[in-house]
C-alpha cells in the first residue's frame, strides 16, 4: 500500500502532556486576567483571540499529536481553517463596507404578518436606525 506509515503510533510522553496541560491552564488564567482586569482598549480583543489561538495550537500539536502525525492530516486541518477564514473575510467584505445608505427608521416598517412583536424588539428596530450605521 502506498501509505504504510507508522507515524500515527508515536507515543507522546507523559512529561510533554503534563507540561502542555499546565501551560493551557496558565494561559486560561492569563486571558481572564488580561480581559477582566487590564483595560488596554482596542487591543483586548486581539489579545484574547491570540491567547485562544495559542491554546488551540497547543491542543492540536500535542494532545491531538498532529506534530507526529501524517502531514496529510495537518493539511486537512489547514484547508479547513483557510475555508473558515475565507467565509469570514469575504462576508465582512460586504457587511463591513455596506454603509453607503442610512438605515430605515422604524416608522416605515409595518408588521403585515400581524405578529406579536414585543416591546424590546420594537426598540431594537428603532435603535437600528442609528446603531447599524
Amino acid at each position: 500500500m502506498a501509505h504504510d506509515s507508522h507515524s500515527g503510533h508515536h507515543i507522546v510522553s507523559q512529561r510533554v502532556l503534563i507540561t502542555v496541560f499546565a501551560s493551557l491552564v496558565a494561559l486560561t488564567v492569563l486571558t481572564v486576567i488580561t480581559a477582566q482586569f487590564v483595560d488596554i482598549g482596542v487591543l483586548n480583543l486581539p489579545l484574547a483571540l491570540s491567547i485562544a489561538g495559542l491554546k488551540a495550537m497547543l491542543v492540536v500539536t500535542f494532545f491531538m499529536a498532529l506534530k507526529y502525525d501524517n502531514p496529510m492530516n495537518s493539511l486537512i486541518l489547514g484547508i479547513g481553517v483557510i475555508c473558515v477564514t475565507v467565509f469570514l473575510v469575504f462576508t465582512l467584505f460586504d457587511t463591513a463596507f455596506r454603509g453607503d445608505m442610512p438605515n430605515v427608521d422604524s416608522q416605515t416598517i409595518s408588521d403585515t404578518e400581524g405578529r406579536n412583536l414585543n416591546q424590546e424588539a420594537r426598540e431594537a428596530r428603532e435603535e437600528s436606525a442609528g446603531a447599524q450605521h
Partner: protein
Amino acid sequence: MGDKGTFWLPESGSTLSPGLDSLFYFTYWISVVIFVAVTVAVIVFAIKYRRRNDSDIPPIVHENKLLETAWIVVPTILVLIVFTWGFRSFLKLHSPPANAYEIQVTAKQWLWDYTYPNGKTSTGDLVVPVDRPVRLVMTSTDVLHSFFVPAFRVKQDVVPNRYSSVWFEATGQGEYHILCTEYCGTQHSGMLGSVIVQSAEDFDAWLQSGVEDMAPAEYGALLYTQQNCNVCHSVDGTRLVGPTLLGLFGRQTTFTDGTTAVADENYIMESIVNPMAKIVEGYPPGMPTIYSSFDSDQLNALVAFIKEQQ
C-alpha cells in the same frame, strides 16, 4: 410599448442602456466566436477521425503547447477587458448624479408605492420627467422585492428595514414596464407597474394635479389599478386570491364563521378598512391591512366603482 428592442435586448430607454448594450453585445459576439470554433471542431473531428476498424489504435498526439498557451492567454486578456468594462459601468450604476430628483419607493406584497418630494403619492405607475436623473430610494415593508425596469437596464433588490437605491435618466417619453424580480409570494408575477416618462412641463402639471375633479367611479377605477386591487380581485368573474368584484354589490355572501350578509356599501367599506373582520368562505384571510389608511373620498370612490361592476 411594443417590441422595439434588438433580437436579444428590449428597447433602450435610459442613458445607462447604450453603454450596457454594447458591453452585452461585445461579450455576446466573443462568445459566439468561441462557441462556433468549439462546435465546428467537435463536428469536424467526429466525422474526420471516425473509427474505421474496431482494433484501430490511433497514434499519440503530443500536446500543442502554443495552442494551449494561447487558449489561456487570450481568454485571460478578454475576460480582463470585460471585467474592467463591467466594473466601470457598474460604478456608474451606483453613482447617481448629485442633482438627481429623489422619489421614495415602498414595496409591499404586491404593489409599488411612490412618494414624491412634494408629498404626492402614487401606486403602480411611477411618473418621472424625461432627460432628468431620477434616484429612487427604496424599502420594503414585508419581504424582499426587486425593482426592475428592463428598458432602463436597472435592477435592485428592495430589502425590509434598509434603504437601497437605484437611479436612471429616461431618454424618451413613453411607458415602460416595472417588474418585481425577487420572489415574494403568491402574486409575485402580478407585482407590475409602469414608468411613465413625461416632458418636464407635463410632469410638473401632473405633480400639482389633484384628483378632486374626477367622478367617484372613475377615481375608483383608477384606485383599483393603482392600488393593485386587480392583483387579487378580478372584475370579470375570474377567481383570483380574493373574490371577484363582478356582481359583488348586492350579492348574498357566506363567511367562514357561518354567517351570511348581503354586500352593501357598509360591508364593502368594512372589508377594505378592516379586511379580517369577515372572511368570505372558501378564500384565505390574505388581504393586507394597508388600505385602512384610505380617506373617505377614496373609499367612496371605490364603493362607487364596485357598485358599477354588475
